[in-house]
């Protein structure tokens, strides 16, 4: 066996193994540093370079001032003693929130906590179950966002892909021209179409709800509940699909057309292969890397939800939570959502490198010049 290792074939394999390992390590390191810097910048920005601390200190002092002045028992306390009492309370409260240490020190603490996914406690926000753990708040908001955006985007992705594939075979047909003509409608974002849809279906026709996720009060029983949620999902999903379907189809169609003008596709046609075989083997397979990339980016997009979209539809997801967190200066929640997003992004980028190599034999992991 020991002789086998030294055979040239094995050595080549060993070589490529070290190459891949080195590539993986450097790639992971550089992604980690990217996430690290990105998260640190978010920490700084979310605290406005320490400015938020000033706001919070002022808030604490005001609250304690009011609390003390409302307290009947402390009314006859001498002024000096009372001021000292207030000062002590303020210091205690600042210490509890960690405001007694300089911001620059705390910013690194924040960074370390964030990177280790120790997201801490929210300053003001609470989850519906009453917890102020950032992790729980995010976990509670994630399912509605995922439910809505996953359904809409997966539907959108496959619908546009397969429509485009069939359109690319009927180039210049009536439907093809319609899609091309309609593609500029995607200039408007989904929330914008959302307003129109709410106007039409909720305000004028009155057949679908204005927003929210479930009827109030929520119906009892699993089936009525599910039906109620489904009813509330129709308009948001429709808005997402209408806002991007035409451009998506147009882009895929153009992409497939470019690929189906390759010589090997003409060759396959000349050989008389059936249409669906040409589609699968000669068009879909070479374009798979791009499709995978696009799919992965769609998946990343799911995690963030959309701040405005969820606000317009009153959808209780992560986007609206972020908006509320910003309004309340609740930095732990802002940082928490960003950290999770950054990690997911990094993981997806990393995995993409390998998926590329799997689906595209032209790409070699670790070879020079290949950059995603």
């Amino acid at each position: 066996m020991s002789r086998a290792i030294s055979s040239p074939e094995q050595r080549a394999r060993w070589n490529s193994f070290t190459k891949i390992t080195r590539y993986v390590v450097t790639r992971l390191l550089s992604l980690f540093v990217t996430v690290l810097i990105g998260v640190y910048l978010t920490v700084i920005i979310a605290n406005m370079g320490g400015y938020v601390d000033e706001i919070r200190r002022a808030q604490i002092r005001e609250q304690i001032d009011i609390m003390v002045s409302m307290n009947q028992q402390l009314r006859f306390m001498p002024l000096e003693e009372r001021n000292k009492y207030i000062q002590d309370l303020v210091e205690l409260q600042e210490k509890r929130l960690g405001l007694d240490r300089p911001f620059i020190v705390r910013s690194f603490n924040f960074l370390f906590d964030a990177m280790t996914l120790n997201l801490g406690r929210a300053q003001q926000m609470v989850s519906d179950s009453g917890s102020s753990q950032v992790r729980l708040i995010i976990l509670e908001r994630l399912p509605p966002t995922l439910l809505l955006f996953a359904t809409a985007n997966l539907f959108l992705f496959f619908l546009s892909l397969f429509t485009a594939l069939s359109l690319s075979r009927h180039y210049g047909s009536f439907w093809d021209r319609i899609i091309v003509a309609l593609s500029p409608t995607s200039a408007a974002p989904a929330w914008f179409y959302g307003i129109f849809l709410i106007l039409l279906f909720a305000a004028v026709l009155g057949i679908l709800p204005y927003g929210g996720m479930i009827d109030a009060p929520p119906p009892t029983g699993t089936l009525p509940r599910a039906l109620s949620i489904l009813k509330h999902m129709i308009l948001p999903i429709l808005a997402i699909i209408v806002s991007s379907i035409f451009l998506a189809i147009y882009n895929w169609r153009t992409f497939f057309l470019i690929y189906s003008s390759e010589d090997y596709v003409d060759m396959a046609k000349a050989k008389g292969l059936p249409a669906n075989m040409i589609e699968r083997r000669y068009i879909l397979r070479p374009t798979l890397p791009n499709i995978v990339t696009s799919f992965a980016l769609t998946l990343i997009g799911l995690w963030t939800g959309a701040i405005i979209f969820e606000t317009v539809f009153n959808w209780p997801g992560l986007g609206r939570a972020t908006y509320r967190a910003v309004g309340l200066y609740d930095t732990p929640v802002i940082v928490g959502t960003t950290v999770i997003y950054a990690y997911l992004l990094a993981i997806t980028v990393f995995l993409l490198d390998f998926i590329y190599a799997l689906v595209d034999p032209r790409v070699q992991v670790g070879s020079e010049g290949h950059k995603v």
Partner: protein
Amino acid sequence: MRNLKRTLAEILHYPSAIAGLIIVFLLIVLAIYTVIAIPYQEAIRLWRGGEEVWQEYPKMAAPVWQNWFTRTKLAETIVLSTRDNEVSKTVKAISTDMTDIEIEIPFKYAYDTFPQELALYLTAKYKQKQPHVSVIWITPDGREITLSDFSVQQSQSYRISQDTRLQRRLGGMKPDQGLFADPALETPTPLKGDYKLVVSGIVFEPDSDLDAKFILYGQVYGLAGTDHRRRDLTIAILWGTPIALAFGLLAALGTTVTTMFIAGVGVWFGGILDDLIQRITEINLVLPLLSILIMVGTFYSRSIWLMLGIVVLFSIFGSGIKNYRAIFLQIKESPYIEAARAYGAGSFRIILFYLIPRIIPLLIPQLVVLVPGYVFLEASLAVLGLGDPVLPTWGKIIDDAQANGALFNGQYYWILEPSMLLMLTGLGFAMVGFALDRIFNPRLRGL
């Protein structure tokens, strides 16, 4: 120049591009007209002026053109004062001191709904003794209703709709309904015809004078309607145009040009600089732009130009940089670059005059396609309540309308007007941009 002509000639082959160009052209004309017709300060005054600017407008009234599409005609707003020709003012001296002033305000009411409100504004000139007036309402069928008697101060407003004593005399009906209702009908229906409001006053001093202004607040007003604070939406609709165009164009131009320059510098110098630019781009991908904008809006300032600056700053290191980089890398190896270097051209000369001109054809469609995105970004920020505090913009109208439940209360015009303009702007630029993309991008040619 010849290139430009050829491009223009090619654009004319795309019907959608022609439509887009017409839309963009009309929007630019509208923007220029607005800036000239309503100067900036005047627009701010009209939009932020306060009650005295808006008091003549009805509250949340639909635009006048809504009447063209419905069978029931909503009441229009009527403003008549002693300065108008229809209003007659007869002055008759009774004695040396006392003068009788009678102001007759005739108006035609031919609408199917009741007005929103009725108000009479009186201004009097006197030294010591206040003039006395009695206000009489004459309906088309000849009934005379005395609304009220009172002494007039320097400027006095008499809100007829809020006169509870009058309401009691009208059998409990609100004055704006009771004064117009046809007495023969069971359900309150306005009686159409010629009404007359008579203000007959007596002044007690020789140089005393009396003037009146009658406002019938209708259900419809102006070209664009009004909002919850009685503001005329025409101002915001008009001024939204130059702001949206300026924001969209400046942001798109700022980002594409800077991105292109940075990509060019990175590729030309290579090494650490190129790596640094690449890393910054990757870090930027992680940062949540919208959250940052919201934070800046809540903490510092909501000025639209500050927002614009931040948007440009964060979009510079966007995905565009990678595309430009890939193209620059190819161009960098071209023989003509080699030649330029051989005769001793400096680095920045090569970047500016040899590298960048080559990708301008790619840049132009990109720029045009980016415009709608930024126009909508401005609207998005406004919808989140982060619109510019001073300027009237389309997004702010949508925000106001949303906040006041316009969709819920059926005031569709309030949301539809700004939305339609936003949509038109987006479509116009997108249609032109897509056509340009097909013209300039050889791989897409003919597709």
